[in-house]
């Protein structure tokens, strides 16, 4: 591919994508493909990291040792997800330091779902079932995306998400077999998390500026609305199964299409949270910045130790 013009290269690149080939880090790619992937993947990685906060909030107050161990493992997985995706993003010639820097400075975005508070234990159930449930639908689609390192990270993540999804559902199922108070708590959590979970798929594709280009590059394989529909179709029967009501008076099954129809989504709320006006935006950023600053001495100590070992002649 040496003496080709930019246009010829782009054409060849598109042909590779159309043939279903997977793009690897050292392959030629349009600058815009690279930058769009960096934007998407880093947002995704930041979301995994911020995602540890709402659930981490309940680790010390989990109702039993078993639930505590499970939640701890789940939150640790989310940290791992962040790290898989960061390392995938670094293959696009951007350093971890830059990525984390853009996040801590507030320049990079993360999923707006994590700006909602976790008010009761039932929220941990609702997050696992709905938020991780939505994430699975999204990430299963991304596991087929055209960029190899991203797709491979998604395959690894999806395996782990199934545990997250089921443990959340089990928390709600257990509460729904409990006292009236516990049932009400479970229902209240679902009432608050249902709509934000639907928003996780993003606005309808006609209002989503990057969609067409990302579809052409097979970074996105399905439209936001299709993925949202898939999530609703598989989730509503699970709610029925444990007696949870979906907080949407317009929700009904359409026999002809075999899909659920649902009421309008409040996109104003979505954009408002993205702009930084969600309930927890400030708290989340504060917590991440504090974690970074408070962890500095650990990073410095580890570096100093490595240097000392090298100086001693023990190869590091």
């Amino acid at each position, binding site marked *: *591919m*040496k003496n080709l013009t930019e246009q010829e290269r782009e054409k060849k690149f598109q042909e590779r994508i159309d043939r279903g080939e997977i793009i*690897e880090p*050292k*392959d*030629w790619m349009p600058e815009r493909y690279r930058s769009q992937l960096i934007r998407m993947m880093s947002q995704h990685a930041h979301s995994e990291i911020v995602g540890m906060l709402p659930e981490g909030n309940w680790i010390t107050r989990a109702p039993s040792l078993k639930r505590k161990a499970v939640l701890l*493992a789940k939150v*640790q*997985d989310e940290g*791992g997800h962040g*790290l*898989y995706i960061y*390392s*995938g993003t*670094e293959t696009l010639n951007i*350093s*971890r*330091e830059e990525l*984390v*820097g853009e996040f*801590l400075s507030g320049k990079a975005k993360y999923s707006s779902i994590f700006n909602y508070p976790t008010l009761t234990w039932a929220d941990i159930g609702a997050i696992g079932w709905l938020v991780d449930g939505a994430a699975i639908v999204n990430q299963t689609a991304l596991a087929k995306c055209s960029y190899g*390192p991203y797709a*491979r*990270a998604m395959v690894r993540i999806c395996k*782990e998400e199934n545990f997250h999804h089921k443990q959340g559902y089990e928390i709600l199922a257990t509460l729904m077999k409990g006292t009236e108070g516990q049932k009400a708590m479970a229902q209240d959590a679902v009432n608050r998390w249902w709509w934000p979970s639907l928003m996780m798929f993003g606005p309808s594709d006609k209002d989503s500026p990057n969609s067409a280009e990302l579809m052409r590059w097979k970074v996105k394989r399905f439209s936001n609305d299709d993925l949202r529909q898939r999530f609703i179709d598989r989730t509503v029967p699970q709610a029925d199964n444990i007696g949870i009501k979906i907080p949407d008076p317009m929700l009904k099954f359409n026999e002809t299409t075999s899909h659920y129809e649902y009421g309008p989504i409040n996109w104003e709320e979505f954009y408002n949270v993205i702009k930084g006006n969600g309930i927890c935006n400030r708290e989340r950023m504060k917590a991440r910045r504090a974690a*970074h600053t408070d962890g*500095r001495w650990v*990073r*410095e100590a*580890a*570096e100093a*130790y*490595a240097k000392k*070992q090298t100086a001693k002649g023990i190869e*590091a």
Partner: protein
Amino acid sequence: MNSTEWPLWEVFTQKKSGLPFEHAGCIHAPDKEMALLNARDVYSRRNEATCLWVVPSGAIVSSTPDDMGSFFEPANDKIYRHPNFYKTPGANFD
């Protein structure tokens, strides 16, 4: 912010003894000891590995995609390296 970033390491995992090592991803770590610990925490929380290799990323030498044609070309015209090149009528080799 810290001005120096910890070195990057490539992580390879072996699922079971006897199986080949497979590339799992990367991690950052200041030394090889922590590279192994970080690799374990990131890539083997569910026994995905029974053995781990960590290799400084800079030590990996890779062929480039531009080579793809010419570099591997010598293998292309040697179909006699495959068993199905040979005709052995009547004999059973299964």
